[in-house]
């Protein structure tokens, strides 16, 4: 069990969730449900262990089913596609965070998204482009939120594309603007939906994210995204 098999994003999700669960379990232990409380506290302990170590005894014991749509199993370890990209933007963390947190606006700079519709404060429904004019859809929830610093999310069950991700905002080292760092993890491409994911990300999974971040920067710094689409040209 030496291998790390829990994704980074999931690790702190685990750790945070474990901590919450532990608090809940301990409360139960002290109050009316000591047995349930003990079981909850035990699971909480395992979650914290996963979070702290990146190793999950359950994953190792059971193996992973890639048809699963649970981010915890599909994205364990470094499974699937991992991407990390950063950009520095001449705007404050507050402005950038507010823009990103307004999920409905994400398609303005994320080329592959058709729409993002909030369901409640943490959950939202996502529609993205897929090959041959089709779309893929999923529900996602925000699993961590530190205003002006961090947003983390994961897809919910039955998602066409299983993924988890985070975006961090921190003042740039030279005091000039804000460094925006995105980490994304997608389920391993397989089957029809896998083909759609592969199509979305192309040969270079980082390239699409880099382009989206570039457009985010252009929009926030200049108010528009540079384009030549629709300009005149001669015969080819």
């Amino acid at each position, binding site marked *: 069990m030496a291998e790390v098999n829990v994704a980074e994003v999931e690790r702190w999700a685990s750790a945070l969730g474990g901590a919450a669960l532990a608090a809940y379990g301990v409360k139960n232990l002290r109050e009316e449900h000591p047995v349930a409380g003990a079981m909850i506290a035990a699971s909480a302990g395992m979650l914290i262990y996963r979070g702290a170590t990146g190793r999950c005894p359950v994953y190792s014991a059971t193996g992973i089913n890639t048809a699963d749509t649970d981010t915890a199993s599909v994205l364990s370890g470094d499974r699937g596609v991992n991407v990390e990209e950063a950009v520095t933007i*001449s705007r404050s963390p507050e402005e950038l965070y507010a823009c990103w947190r307004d999920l409905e606006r994400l398609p303005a700079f994320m080329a592959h998204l058709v729409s993002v519709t909030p369901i409640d404060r943490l959950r939202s429904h996502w529609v993205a482009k897929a090959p041959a004019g089709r779309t893929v859809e999923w529900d996602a929830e925000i699993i961590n939120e530190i205003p002006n610093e961090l947003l983390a999310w994961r897809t919910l069950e039955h998602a066409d594309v299983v993924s988890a991700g985070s975006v961090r905002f921190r003042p740039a080292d030279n005091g000039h603007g804000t460094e925006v760092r995105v980490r994304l993890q997608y389920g391993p491409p397989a089957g029809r939906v896998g083909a759609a994911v592969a199509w979305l990300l192309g040969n270079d999974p980082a390239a699409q994210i880099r382009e989206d971040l570039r457009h985010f920067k252009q929009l926030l710094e200049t108010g528009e995204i540079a384009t*030549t689409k629709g300009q*005149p040209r001669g015969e080819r």
Partner: protein
Amino acid sequence: MKALVWHGTNDVRVERVPDPAILNPRDAIIKVTSSAICGSDLHLLDGYIPTMQAGDILGHEFMGEVVDVGKDNTKLKVGDRVVVPFTIACGRCFFCEKQLWSLCDNSNPNAWMAEKLYGYTTSGLFGYSHLTGGYAGGQAQYVRVPFADVGPLKVPNRLTDEQVLFLSDIFPTGYMAAENCGIQPGDVIAVWGCGPVGQMAIRSAFLLGAARVIAVDSVPGRLRMATEAGAEVVNFEHDDVFEKLRAATGGRGPDACIDAVGLEAHGATLDAYIDQAKATAFLATDRPNALRQAIHCCRKGGVVSIPGVYGGFLDRIPFGAAFQKGLTFRMGQTHMMKYMKPLLERIERDEIDPSFVITHRFSIDDAANAYYLFRDRKNECIKVILKPHGETIH
């Protein structure tokens, strides 16, 4: 509208294409009253710049009248008479705020392409390949100008188009080349290439206090024009450039050397022919003969200033000479918005009239022929301007 369209190496044509429209909130549409062909356009004609596509509209030196503005453009209004810089800059990024306008982060829609070649993208340019954005250029009757609240400079009606047109590129480019030399009183500046940028660099060097300017070229008309500006001249076809420059500077060498030639240098030395052979066989992309000579000729501790355009990989640059002599290199596309207004003021004060460089004027219908004439340097052609709407009152 009519526009000059690139179709392939040595193939440009004037065609009817759709009129441009506002695409982004800070755009403006300019009715082009005057447009020029730049020496760097010849690199496109000759197929030296990658990522051109058949159908691309060329031209990056132009001016005209504002006929439409986007909803967020509060600086310009319909009817304004403006000169448009060849670089496109957002005015709000890290680089624009440092006056490094040609390194703008946000104006190249094909930034990913430039990142593959250069690591990081530079600004978008009009009519200069898809590597720098694929923006339709200004050798056309109308042109869309992005971020038009940053670039275009309003010009007074008492100055003619020909007096101010070259604020769009070659005057600021020649001026920045001279400024990059860090000229001290008494300095001797050598300039390789007496094309339009070289001519502007020669005059700018004098404006900035150079004691002497020595111009290197082989075309008699260009050397004559350099002489008229007060430069001494060296013809590289007849003379050994190094020996001439050494003798002219009392054995010390020029204080700064300007390479106003760039990637398609023609020369009469052996390495020039080797470059030509290699470039033809696609082993190298650029022919840096003038640059090599500039490095070799420059005095110890001097400056090599490079306004000439390079795009790819350079072969056998005498880096040992550069290092051992402790040279300083200054280069890059011109930071236009830093120079346009002060240089307009110099024109208004009659310190310089950049129209001296114009040798030919054509209507847009003859633009393709004008390219071939300029390429072949026929009829002592130095600078061609186009009139997309015929003659105007300016």
